[in-house]
């Protein structure tokens, strides 16, 4: 397990890095509009009407963007939580924590892919 983890560490780190980079860039707009602007009534909800949203989302670009928006933050989150765990004296339990967190992120990524395929 440890060995495998070491082998894929560069990959995880790439995903994590993109999670911060792309994830942050995309999430800012998403939260502003979808999670705050529209629900608070600051922005009209026409843009998010099902028809339009589905059309945009199911285009190729749309699917890719949505997949990135779902999956990348998971890797950022998992990796950071692993660091938090180690920083709070958890080097010893890392052998359990790390696979668990990355497992969650991997599962989530699969779900994300499934979700965009279903569109």
């Amino acid at each position, binding site marked *: 397990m*440890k060995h495998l983890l*070491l082998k894929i*560490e*560069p990959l995880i*780190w*790439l995903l994590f890095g993109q999670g911060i980079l792309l994830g942050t860039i995309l999430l800012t707009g998403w939260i502003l509009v979808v999670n705050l602007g529209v629900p608070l009534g600051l922005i009209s909800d026409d843009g998010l009407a099902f028809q339009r949203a589905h059309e945009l989302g199911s285009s190729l670009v749309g699917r890719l963007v949505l997949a990135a928006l779902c999956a990348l933050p998971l890797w950022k989150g998992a990796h*950071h939580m692993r*660091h938090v765990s*180690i*920083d*709070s*004296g*958890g*080097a010893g339990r890392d052998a359990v924590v790390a696979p668990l967190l990355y497992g969650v992120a991997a599962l989530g990524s699969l779900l994300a892919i499934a979700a965009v395929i279903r569109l």
Partner: protein
Amino acid sequence: MAETLVKKFVVTRFDPDKDEAPRTESYEVPCHPDWKVLDALNHIKDEIDGSLAHRWSCRMSVCGSCGMNVNGQPTLTCKKAVSDLPDTVEVTPLANFPVVRDLVVELDGFMEKLKSVKPWIIRAKEKAVEEGPMRQSQAELEEFKQFSMCINCMLCYAACPVVANEPEFLGPAAIALGHRYSVDSRDEGAAERNEIFRGEGTVFACSYANECSEVCPKHVDPAAAVNQAKFNAVIDWAAGLVLPRGGKE
């Protein structure tokens, strides 16, 4: 003679011959306004308590011996002026290191880590002296110059949260010094070191706290080095996937 500042120095003492655990002792020290913390410690040793143990030599911030935690911050004691500090000054040994005695910490662990990153020029074929010096442009020099400024003072180790919790972690200075050679245009050992950097407890253990660079007295910016090394290790890894280096692995 300018007026003196009397400051209280609370100093960690620990003598494994006698003490179970570290304790503190306070000294009132009449400080000259120009003094550095080190001058005050030397005053304590010379005039008040000869049994205090601390390391120092150059008193011009270049030998790297005198690193300690001063009021919680990793500091070169020969560089920090007493006049910049509050009336009570707390001097403790560097954090994250086992303490040998008083203010003296264990450095052998670092020496092993340093050696493990191969901090020397690796070349497929050594150049003969007769061929003269290698050429290197000022720009190529700039690429690693900063990272070669490390005085091994260990302040970065005392600040890094990962060092505190991950005993395998090579730590900022060792990685910076390995990386320094990898980006030296005269070196050909980057691949070898990338391999090392992908091992356990190396670059990926760093969580980019950036504390190392905040405390570094020589502006080495070890955080930059560690994270550049990450990049290089990843690129090298990806390249290895695309075009496997035959035979070598």
